[in-house]
């Protein structure tokens, strides 16, 4: 059965001249390809939430000393943790690719007197920042620099 959609989210800014029935969500909404991708994008939120909590554990281990840090790294070798972090990496790549594609389209035409750069340039800048930050983190956390 179809169910009522969120009236707040779908409310027009001013009432129209013609009375309309309240919006309804079709029962098979999740089978539509665009909706499925959108739901998948939303579902990455569960993984991000857990990644944030695990990162909190990393900070507490650093605070608690060498034994806690070594125990943390040993626990990360558990297959469940490895699978979760592999999934988190896939989610981060999916979110990045989708969000960076949408980001240039969501920019205002003007920010005061300034205009944002053309969309392809903005898109390229986001990817350059993403790759650059990833390489810097790989170098620092991978022990390349500083020695």
């Amino acid at each position, binding site marked *: 059965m179809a169910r009522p959609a969120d009236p707040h989210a779908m409310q027009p800014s001013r009432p129209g001249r013609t009375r309309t029935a309240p919006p309804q969500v079709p029962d098979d909404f999740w089978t539509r390809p665009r909706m499925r991708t959108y*739901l998948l994008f939303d*579902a990455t939120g569960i993984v991000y*939430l857990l990644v*944030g909590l*695990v990162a909190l554990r990393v900070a507490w281990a650093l605070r608690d000393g060498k034994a806690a840090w070594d125990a943390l790294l040993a626990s990360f070798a558990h297959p469940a943790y*490895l699978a979760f972090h592999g999934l988190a990496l896939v989610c981060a790549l999916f979110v990045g690719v989708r969000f960076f594609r949408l980001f240039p389209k969501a920019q205002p035409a003007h920010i005061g007197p300034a205009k944002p750069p053309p969309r392809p340039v903005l898109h390229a800048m986001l990817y350059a920042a993403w790759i650059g930050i990833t390489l810097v983190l790989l170098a620092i*956390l991978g022990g390349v620099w500083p020695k």
Partner: protein
Amino acid sequence: MRALLLRLEPIIWLLFGAGILVGTLLLPGYLLTVALGAPLHLLPDGALSFERAHMLGSSLVGRVVLLALIALPLWKGAHHTRALAVDTLGHHSDGLVGSLLYAVAAIGSVLGIVAILSI
């Protein structure tokens, strides 16, 4: 509860947007090293020894990056999980679900600040 969430929407959206952008920029580097590289022994010896990790994590930049890695994914995660709950379960439980998720993000962020200040 929904009225309060609507009033807090600008702050929540700011943290959510920062979570998508900054969180996503930082996550691959963090996941490939701390979460996957170190446990799979793909990193050089000593790269993430306690002494080196502590030196990196206790620097000013290290603390800021670590806090961003904790707090921003929590807010992105809370907001997107709330949206997923609305889309799949309907909006009748949104006040409760949204409040719980943002409470987790807020408490996690505070604990993150406490942790990085005491490293």
